[in-house]
């Protein structure tokens, strides 16, 4: 399902943020209008889509955030909001009141938590996040973005226990924004990241906390033991994928995902259904894959990739390779490099 | 069926800018009741002799309602008295500006079987109206008052709109005005016919007329369910797309033995213009029977014209079947000779080729 950006502004500035580039280009007033939201609700309905993923910037900054969520719920959609949890007291209190009777499977939050030591935040921000956790408790899935090798997620275990959060941690890798500078994990370090994450497994097992790995992890960097643990904890549903997720901006512009937000930007109005949008971007993904199997040289001849068990990591890495090493290998990329 | 155009009067209460009747030297004559009585006697005689025939009386002027309701009551009486067994084969229609129409005429129209009247209207100020200054507003107020009566008694109406030089600046504006006024359309666009230099600014060329129609036609075609009765579009669709041949007198090539125009003094001719121009004189109704008038040898020249054109100027023209060289009087006005095609030839051919066929995607095949 596509992500819908309620706003492009954010009240934080995380070093790894792959939304960063996009946000810095946007005007602070760039928020989704009611007309566009209603259009999207209709568009989702006719496309047979029953859920909204709300994204930002920080989506709760939208002045009508609560009303818009109430609207989508009334339209019968299930909703997941990606947030940093920093919300004004009044708005949070109101949200708590409005949404208290809504079942968690219809309204949930994925809160992106930063490690206090490596990514310091103010006391008031921490307090605000805690109030958010205390308000929405079991509706919240904690999320963590890895952009350093020495990361530590144990603070999240505390939050899970203290606030009764969903016992799955959504872990994402910081990916490069193609052609731009941001902090991200180099392909060569992904194995180290996986091993470090796996070092938290004993505690996670003890606390019955499950992993939820985000896109862009290559299968080959996991050991058999690690894969076995993943299998046992995800029911075998884990996908080593990288596919267009589709982000829809407040102005109805479209891009395949944040790291690729400068590529093949289109508008929702160019399409008749969500399926058409996915078909369009999947086709582009396929073309890039023809040029490069994945983030490692060995991806080109990898049997897991050939059997479609792995996509070869995040495509933003592949694009970076084209941009830096082979600027004329593909027409679309060439155009981007020339313009960019 | 033959049509008898009865010029009841040459008087008119409107000084329409483009009209010839009010500018004629003999303006002012009204048909005497004696002539009308005679007309019905002649009609009865003709219909008794021709039991399969019918006649259509088109009451025309000048302004045909000017003689008043009492005049028309006599007409009804004449038909009753002189056509007791043939009256059911006489139909009546009328072309009026409606400004003298009152409730008194309603029962008269009912008795004559007139269910719809032909009229005309113009959005352009000072185009129609009484007096030297052509007082449009007073004309229009009277016209609209008449429409309320027509509406009340469920009598229909249709308009002839005369396309003049003043119409060319906003064809669609004219079209919307007329079709907003009379919602189903009910309008027939005819080009103005101006024969003097003084009013040259009112005249339109065949090319201008084509462009006028061409500006309207795509809109009409797209929305013809809204305004179905717009001529000449509707007829062209019937003739070209549906293959239903139904042609106006100017295009039919068969007016020769089917039209009589009677002037207020009883002189007969082919039509109003031939009468005005003293052409095609078929004699006076006092002296001739209707059958004699319809078979008058002067008419044969019109019949010959068909053959001459088909083998001459119009030879090979794919539109012959729906045009027949157009109106012979149009030909005469330019060449002083009937045996030429109408000067409005391009107005039909050009419109079909440039607009009708491309817009509808239907090509006329003879």
């Amino acid at each position: 399902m596509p992500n819908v950006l309620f706003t492009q502004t954010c009240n934080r500035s995380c070093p790894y943020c792959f939304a960063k580039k996009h946000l810095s280009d946007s005007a602070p007033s760039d928020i989704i209008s009611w007309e566009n939201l209603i259009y999207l609700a209709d568009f989702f309905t006719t496309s047979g889509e029953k859920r909204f993923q709300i994204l930002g910037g920080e989506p709760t900054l939208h002045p009508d955030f609560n009303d818009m969520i109430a609207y989508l719920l009334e339209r019968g959609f299930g909703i997941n909001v990606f947030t940093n949890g920093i919300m004004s007291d009044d708005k949070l209190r109101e949200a708590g009141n409005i949404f208290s009777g809504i079942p968690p499977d219809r309204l949930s939050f994925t809160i992106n938590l930063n490690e206090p030591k490596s990514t310091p935040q103010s006391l008031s921000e921490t307090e605000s996040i805690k109030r958010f956790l205390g308000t929405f408790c079991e509706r919240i899935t904690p999320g963590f973005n890895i952009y350093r090798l020495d990361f530590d997620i144990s603070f999240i275990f505390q939050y899970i226990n203290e606030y009764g959060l969903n016992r799955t941690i959504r872990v994402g890798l910081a990916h490069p924004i193609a052609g731009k500078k941001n902090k991200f994990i180099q392909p060569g370090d992904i194995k180290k990241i996986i091993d470090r994450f796996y070092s938290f497994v004993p505690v996670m097992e003890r606390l019955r906390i499950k992993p939820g790995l985000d896109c862009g992890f290559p299968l080959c960097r996991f050991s058999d033991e690690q894969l076995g643990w993943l299998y046992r904890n995800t029911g075998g549903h884990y996908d080593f994928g990288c596919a267009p997720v589709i982000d829809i901006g407040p102005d109805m512009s479209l891009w395949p995902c944040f790291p690729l937000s400068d590529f093949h930007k289109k508008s929702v109005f160019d399409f008749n259904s969500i399926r058409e949008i996915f078909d369009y971007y999947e086709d582009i993904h396929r073309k890039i894959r023809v040029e490069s199997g994945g983030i490692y040289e060995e991806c080109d001849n990898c049997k897991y990739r050939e059997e479609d068990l792995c996509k070869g990591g995040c495509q933003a890495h592949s694009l970076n390779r084209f941009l830096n090493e082979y600027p004329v290998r593909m027409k679309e990329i060439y155009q981007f490099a020339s313009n960019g | 069926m033959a049509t008898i155009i009865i010029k009841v009067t040459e008087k008119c209460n409107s000084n329409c800018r483009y009209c010839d009747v009010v500018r004629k030297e003999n303006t002012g004559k009204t048909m005497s009741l004696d002539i009308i009585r005679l007309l019905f006697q002649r009609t009865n005689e003709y219909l008794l002799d021709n039991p399969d025939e019918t006649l259509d009386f088109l009451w025309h002027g000048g302004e045909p309602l000017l003689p008043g309701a009492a005049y028309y009551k006599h007409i009804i009486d004449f038909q009753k008295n002189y056509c007791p067994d043939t009256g059911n084969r006489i139909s009546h229609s009328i072309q009026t500006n409606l400004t003298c129409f009152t409730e008194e005429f309603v029962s008269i129209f009912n008795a004559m079987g007139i269910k719809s009247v032909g009229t005309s209207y113009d959005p352009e100020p000072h185009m129609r109206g009484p007096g030297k200054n052509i007082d449009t507003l007073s004309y229009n107020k009277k016209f609209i008052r008449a429409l309320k009566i027509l509406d009340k008694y469920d009598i229909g109406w249709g308009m002839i709109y005369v396309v003049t030089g003043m119409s060319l600046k906003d064809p669609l504006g004219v079209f919307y005005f007329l079709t907003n006024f009379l919602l189903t359309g009910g309008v027939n666009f005819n080009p103005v016919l101006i024969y003097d230099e003084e009013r040259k600014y009112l005249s339109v060329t065949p090319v201008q007329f084509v462009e006028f129609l061409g500006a309207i036609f795509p809109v009409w075609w797209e929305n013809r369910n809204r305004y179905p009765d717009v001529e000449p579009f509707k007829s062209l669709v019937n003739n070209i797309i549906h293959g239903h041949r139904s042609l106006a007198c100017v295009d039919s090539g068969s007016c020769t033995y089917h039209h009589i125009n009677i002037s207020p003094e009883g002189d007969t001719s082919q039509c109003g213009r031939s009468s005005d121009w003293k052409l095609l004189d078929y004699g006076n109704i006092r002296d001739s029977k209707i059958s004699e008038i319809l078979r008058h040898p002067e008419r044969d020249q019109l019949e010959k014209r068909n053959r001459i054109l088909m083998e001459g100027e119009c030879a090979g023209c794919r539109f012959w079947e729906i045009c027949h060289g157009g109106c012979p009087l149009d030909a005469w006005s330019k060449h002083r000779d009937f045996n030429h095609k109408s000067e409005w030839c391009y107005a039909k051919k050009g419109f079909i080729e440039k607009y009708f066929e491309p817009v509808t995607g239907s090509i006329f095949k003879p």
Partner: protein
Amino acid sequence: MAEHFLVCDYNPKILKRIRDRSVVFFLDSLSKLYDLESDARDHHIHIHCVIYETKKSLSDIIYKPEWSKFPIAIVSPSLGRLSSFLKMASVIKKLNIRFYFRTDYENCYRDIRILSSLGYYCAVIINGKTVNWEELTDLMTYALLNVVNHREILPFSYVTRYYHPQNRTDYGAVYFDDASRYIHLTGEGMLALSRKQMNSVNGILLELDKLDRITQEKAYKEYLYRWQEFFLEPTPCACCKGWRICLGKYADTIKDNPGCRDFFSEFLEAVDLHLKKRENTTKEEFIWQP
């Protein structure tokens, strides 16, 4: 012709004079609904609709389940907080209610779209001076051509209901401003053809007891033919493609706020398109209709 509806302020003094009539009542407070109900019952009055115009937002009104007995029109400046409004959704959804918004308030287009998409009946009151024709065009397009189900928005759906391509469609009835259906009544028992006329000396036509003769009145007949006035001279309205829907309602404001021409032309197209789409389906009417 069907009997006219009377339109008047709720005034107990006049009720006995409008026995057996169908009436639209203006109320200054919805708390008076209960009195109105018993009065109407006592005097055999059929309540066609109750109109309540308020300065409050819709979300600030406390809706009562008992109102379900009445066809209600609420004229409000705004929706207010949607989340607060939705808290009362279970009650509101059972009411026979339509929300009217004036184009005097910029939020009206958005509020109507929100409510309509959530299943609430709405109407927009188009003031030629204040209307944003582009926004209204978007709303009209949404109302008539959007593929996802939403509740009807007046006057757009009213026009589609009564539209015939070869006829005029007057949507004045949406605002009870159509003397062929609604006759207005003053507190003193005098009749007028519109609420506006009711307030002018020359606007009063007859006394209430002569209501059944109103169709014979010259002013009434002229009212029915008032559209013809546009054709006395070549007015911009008469030459407009959309006239057969607008009927010159915005002739006074066209100079200062042009845009009606484009709007009504598009409206006409949209109506045709809408009807083509709906040719084989009929839509059920769940609540009162003007």
